[in-house]
């Protein structure tokens, strides 16, 4: 078993128009790898833990970049880099939650190359799976992490179904909180999927983290005005402050009515294979003020129903703590 390190032989297609990219994606099907910023691509390929015969590089398609104002909010090209998202004045002003989340991804260089589309479509980080083992997610019939001795400190406390990996995206929870929708194109046309439905857990599809199908390309993300200029809270807890994926993250949008919370979206990351809406918390804080009393009253609403593994018990208090912090912050 070598420790592979060199990119394997592959063809490379560099379409300049989205139509050409869609035609290629259709023609090449699942033998092709659709390439955005590539930051979750080259490791897989160099390791030869996954292979493809060709890459369809979207970077030449200018229409996939940038932030546009629309009648009902904004539309962000899927190829917009995380740095551009974090620095974009419009997003910072109206949807600071998303700029905060984007600015916490990985490292500056990765944010300079990595894209929003890639960040929400990246694969799970379970190290067993990344090593190329034949686990459920890889088409096999076992899970290495969900065992009494599995090294599963980073794994899920919710929504496990054979696979216990979490979705590692930092921007995903923010987009779910903002009620974003994902614009997906293929040669057969366009479909719009709510961010909440874009991310899928293993019970629905154990081999994919998103609703994207072969031949489809995520072209943009739309964020409605619903939560524009709301009160936001974002926090990512990771081992190191650079590179590392979240142990738990929390993206919160709140509409205030004077001193009380009129409506809110609480979404946790890295606790499940998709961003986790905390509906019970949202219901419990409605009409309450942002203070210690409210925070205390939440108790373990966020963590109720968690199923812990051998090494991830800490995620239970951590998610509860982050909810409380979000309530009292600021």
């Amino acid at each position, binding site marked *: 078993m070598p420790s592979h390190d060199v990119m394997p032989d*592959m*063809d490379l297609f*560099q379409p300049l128009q989205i139509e050409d990219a869609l035609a290629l994606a259709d023609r090449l099907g699942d033998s092709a790898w659709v390439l955005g910023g590539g930051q979750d691509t080259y490791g897989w390929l*160099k390791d030869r833990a996954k292979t493809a015969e060709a890459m369809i590089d979207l970077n030449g398609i200018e229409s996939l970049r940038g932030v546009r104002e629309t009648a009902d909010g904004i539309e962000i090209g899927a190829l917009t880099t995380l740095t551009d998202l974090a620095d974009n004045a419009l997003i910072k002003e109206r949807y600071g939650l998303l700029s905060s989340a984007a600015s916490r991804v990985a490292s*500056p260089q990765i944010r300079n190359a990595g894209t929003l589309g890639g960040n929400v479509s990246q694969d799970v980080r379970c190290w067993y799976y990344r090593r190329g083992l034949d686990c459920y997610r890889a088409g096999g019939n076992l899970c290495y992490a969900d065992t009494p001795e599995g090294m599963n400190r980073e794994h899920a406390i919710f929504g496990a179904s054979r696979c216990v990996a979490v979705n590692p995206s930092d921007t995903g929870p923010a987009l779910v909180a903002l009620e974003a929708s994902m614009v997906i194109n293929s040669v057969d046309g366009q479909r719009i999927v709510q961010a909440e439905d874009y991310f899928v857990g293993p019970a629905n599809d154990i081999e994919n983290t998103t609703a994207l199908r072969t031949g489809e390309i995520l072209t943009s993300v739309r964020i409605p005005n619903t939560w524009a200029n709301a009160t936001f809270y974002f926090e990512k807890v990771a081992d190191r402050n650079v590179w590392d994926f979240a142990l738990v993250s929390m993206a919160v949008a709140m509409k205030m009515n004077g001193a009380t919370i009129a409506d809110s979206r609480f979404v946790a990351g890295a606790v499940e294979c998709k961003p986790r809406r905390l509906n019970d918390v949202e219901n419990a804080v409605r009409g309450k003020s942002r203070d210690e009393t409210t925070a205390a009253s939440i108790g373990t609403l966020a963590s109720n129903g968690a199923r812990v593994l051998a090494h991830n018990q800490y995620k239970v208090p951590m998610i509860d703590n982050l909810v409380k912090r979000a309530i009292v912050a600021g």
Partner: protein
Amino acid sequence: MNPKVTRRRFIKGVIFSATAATAGAGIYIANAASSRSAGAVERLVSLTVNGRTRRVDVRPQETLAHTLRYRLNLTGTKLACNRGECGACTVMLDNIANYSCSLLTHQIKGREITTVEGLRLEDGTLHPVQQAFIEELAPQCGFCTPGQVVSAAALLIANPNPTREEARQGLSGNLCRCGAYDHYLNGVMRAAELIS
């Protein structure tokens, strides 16, 4: 951005399923260059590196770090992880810091590539960052240094007068195992003074 291949080939997967197993599942992918599909890229690519434009023969899947080191012999750009986890391979693309191990050379056509070798002036005068890093004895073992130099240069282009905290953020994508962070930060702050 659909980094998924549903027909996955987990070539290492076989090893734990039997008491005696075979390493290497025997999958060999034919050389793409000899069986190039219609519409796929040509290998010859025009690259502008450190102000010089040249035609280079580059495999479709080749990373920029490999092209720089093994085709253009620009060995200042270091490979320390080849996975975007350290920053030793950092170069500037149009003045923005990027990991050259995690970009395809074919994606860079038409953009200005600046490596550590390109920061010195033609007459040999050192870039202010290089000068300041010498004065502050910023490097230790030196293997991460070219990446730190390029990240610092890119930072000072975007923000010529950074606070120490901004400098720290700007260089945070460059790992230094020797732990010379403090001295690198001193170097960035001194370079900013030299520039102004």
